[in-house]
C-alpha cells in the first residue's frame, strides 16, 4: 500500500505542487523566489533528460544546445520579427524538436561513449553558432529579451515568474509521469536494459530512441525560453558545454529515471552554489566535494535512495 502510494503518479504531483505552493510562504525575500524559479526552469530541462537518459538510457552531453534554441527563439523572434514571445516559445520548441529529429536519426545509431561524444559535438556546434552569428544573436555578450506582456498584463517580477515557471514544471512533470506509466514508457525502459530483447518484442528501437530525443529537446527548449524571458537576457553560455554537464549531473544526482529526482537534482545544483557563496574562494571546491560525496553515499541518486529507505521503514 505504502509502496503503491510512493510510486504513484498522483503522489509525485501532489508533493511537487505542495512544495511549489509552500516555498513562497517560507521565502524571506523576493531573491529566494527568484532562485526557486531558476530551480523550476532547470528542473524542467532536466526532466527532458530524465526521459532520454533515465527512461531510454541514451546520454546527451549537448542538451544545453536545445536550451539555447529556446532561449534565442524568445529573444530573436520579438526583436527581429515582432512576434509575440509566447508564440516564439512554441516556435523555439518546435525548432528544437525538428532539429533533434534530423540530428537524432544518424546520432542515435551510436551507443554509450560514442553517443556521448557525438551529442557533445552537436552541443558545441550550437554554442559556436550562438557565439559567432552576432548579427542575429548579439555575439558573446548575448542579447536582451523583450519584456513579456500576456493579455495586456506585463509579466515581470520574481513573484510572477515564480508561478509561471512553477506551473510549467508541473505540466512537464505530469507529462513525464504519464510517459513513464504508458506503453511508450515501458518500451523506452525496455530498450534501456536490452535493445535486442526490446526489438524481439516488436519495439522499433530507433524510432523510440528518436522520440525520446525529440521530447527531451522540446523540454530543454521550453525551459530555455522561460529562462531567457525571465532573465531578460540570453548569452551563448546558456547553451554551453558546462550547462549540458550540469543538466546531466542534475538527473544523476537526483536519481536517474525519477521525475521527482530531476527536481531535487536541479535544486541541489542551483541552490548549493548560492548557499556556499559565504565560502568565497572555496565555494567551487566544496561544491565539487559535495557532489562526489553524494555520488559515493547515494549512488542510486537522492530520491530513489530515500524512497527505498522510506519503504523499508514503512513495511
Amino acid at each position: 500500500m505504502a509502496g503503491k502510494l510512493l510510486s504513484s503518479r498522483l503522489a509525485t504531483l501532489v508533493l511537487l505542487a505542495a512544495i511549489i505552493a509552500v516555498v513562497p510562504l517560507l521565502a524571506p525575500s523576493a531573491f529566494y523566489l527568484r532562485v526557486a524559479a531558476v530551480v523550476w526552469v532547470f528542473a524542467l530541462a532536466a526532466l527532458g533528460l530524465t526521459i532520454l537518459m533515465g527512461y531510454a538510457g541514451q546520454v546527451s552531453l549537448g542538451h544545453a544546445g536545445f536550451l539555447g534554441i529556446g532561449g534565442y527563439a524568445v529573444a530573436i523572434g520579438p526583436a527581429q520579427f515582432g512576434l509575440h514571445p509566447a508564440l516564439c516559445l512554441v516556435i523555439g520548441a518546435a525548432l528544437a524538436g525538428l532539429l533533434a529529429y534530423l540530428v537524432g536519426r544518424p546520432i542515435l545509431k551510436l551507443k554509450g561513449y560514442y553517443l556521448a561524444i557525438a551529442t557533445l559535438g552537436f552541443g558545441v556546434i550550437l554554442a559556436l553558432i550562438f557565439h559567432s552569428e552576432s548579427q542575429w544573436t548579439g555575439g558573446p555578450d548575448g542579447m536582451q529579451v523583450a519584456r513579456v506582456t500576456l493579455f495586456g498584463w506585463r509579466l515581470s517580477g520574481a513573484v510572477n515568474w515564480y508561478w509561471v515557471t512553477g506551473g510549467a514544471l508541473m505540466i512537464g512533470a505530469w507529462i513525464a509521469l504519464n510517459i513513464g506509466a504508458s506503453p511508450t514508457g515501458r518500451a523506452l525502459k525496455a530498450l534501456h536494459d536490452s535493445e535486442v530483447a526490446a526489438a524481439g518484442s516488436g519495439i522499433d528501437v530507433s524510432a523510440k530512441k528518436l522520440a525520446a530525443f525529440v521530447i527531451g529537446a522540446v523540454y530543454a527548449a521550453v525551459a530555455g525560453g522561460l529562462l531567457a524571458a525571465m532573465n531578460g537576457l540570453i548569452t551563448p553560455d546558456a547553451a554551453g558545454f558546462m550547462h549540458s554537464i550540469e543538466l546531466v549531473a542534475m538527473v544523476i544526482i537526483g536519481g536517474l529515471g525519477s521525475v521527482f529526482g530531476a527536481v531535487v537534482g536541479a535544486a541541489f545544483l542551483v541552490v548549493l552554489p548560492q548557499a556556499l557563496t559565504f565560502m568565497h574562494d572555496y565555494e567551487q571546491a566544496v561544491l565539487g566535494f559535495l557532489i562526489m560525496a553524494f555520488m559515493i553515499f547515494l549512488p542510486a541518486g537522492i530520491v530513489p535512495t530515500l524512497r527505498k529507505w522510506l519503504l523499508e521503514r514503512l513495511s
Partner: protein
Amino acid sequence: MSLLRVEGLGISFGGLVAVDNVGFSVEAGQVFSIIGPNGAGKTTLFNLVTGIYKPLRGRVTMGGDDVTGLAPHLLAKRGMSRTFQNLQIFFRMTALENVMVGRHMAERSSLLSDLLGLPAADRQTRATREAAMGLLERVGLSDVANATAGALSYGVLKRLEIARALAASPKVLLLDEPAAGCNAVETEAIDHLIGEIAKSGVAVVLIEHDMKLVMKISDRVLVLAQGRHLAEGPPREVRDNPAVIAAYLGDHGTREADRAHG
C-alpha cells in the same frame, strides 16, 4: 506451406564459415529441435533467422513470404518470437513489466495519449497488465510478478523469457536453451510448457543440450556440426544415425537417449 522455412542459409565471420547452407522447415504445432556440439552454429543460425545477423546466402520464409534479413522488430510483427541463450531480461523492471513489454505489439495507444495520460493509455496499460498476469500464471510465476527481475534466479528468468515471448502471440517461437541451468523440476515444467505451446498451434524451434528433453518432445531433430547440416529426422532416427553418433552423441549420448525412451 510451412510456417517457417529456411533454405541454404549461410554466413561467415572474417573468413570463418559459421553457418553453411543450412535448411529446414517447421510446421504449425511442431517441435523442431536443433542440436549439435558447442560451436556448431546453433545460436548463429537463430540469429540469422531472427534478423540479428543478415545472412550472406539463403532465404527465410514465413508462410511463404520472404522475410530474409528483415529487422528483428519487423520479424516480431510477422509473428516470430524468441528467447536468448544468454538471458536478455529487462533487469530493472519487474517480472510483470517484462511480460507487459512482450505485449507491445498488441498495445493500441498513440504517443499523444501516452504523453497526456489520456484514459485510452491507462485502459491499455490495465489490459496489458491483465494479459501479462495471465501469462505469468501460465508459466507458474504469478507469485513473483512484482519482484524486480534482477533479483530473480536463473531458472525463473528462463521461464520469464518464455512468458515474454508468448506475450507477443507468436506463430513461430524460437527457444535457445530454455532448460540450461535449470534443475530437474524446472526442466520438467519447461518440457510440459513447450508441449502445451506446440499443441496450441505454434511452430516451436528449440536449441537444447538436454538430450532427454530433446528426444522426448521433438517431432523432428536437426543435427548441426561445424555449421553444416549433418542429419535430420525424427528423434529415434537421428539418435540411431551412425554419423551423428560419431560426430556428436558418442557412446554416452546414446545411453542417455536410450534411457529417455525407456
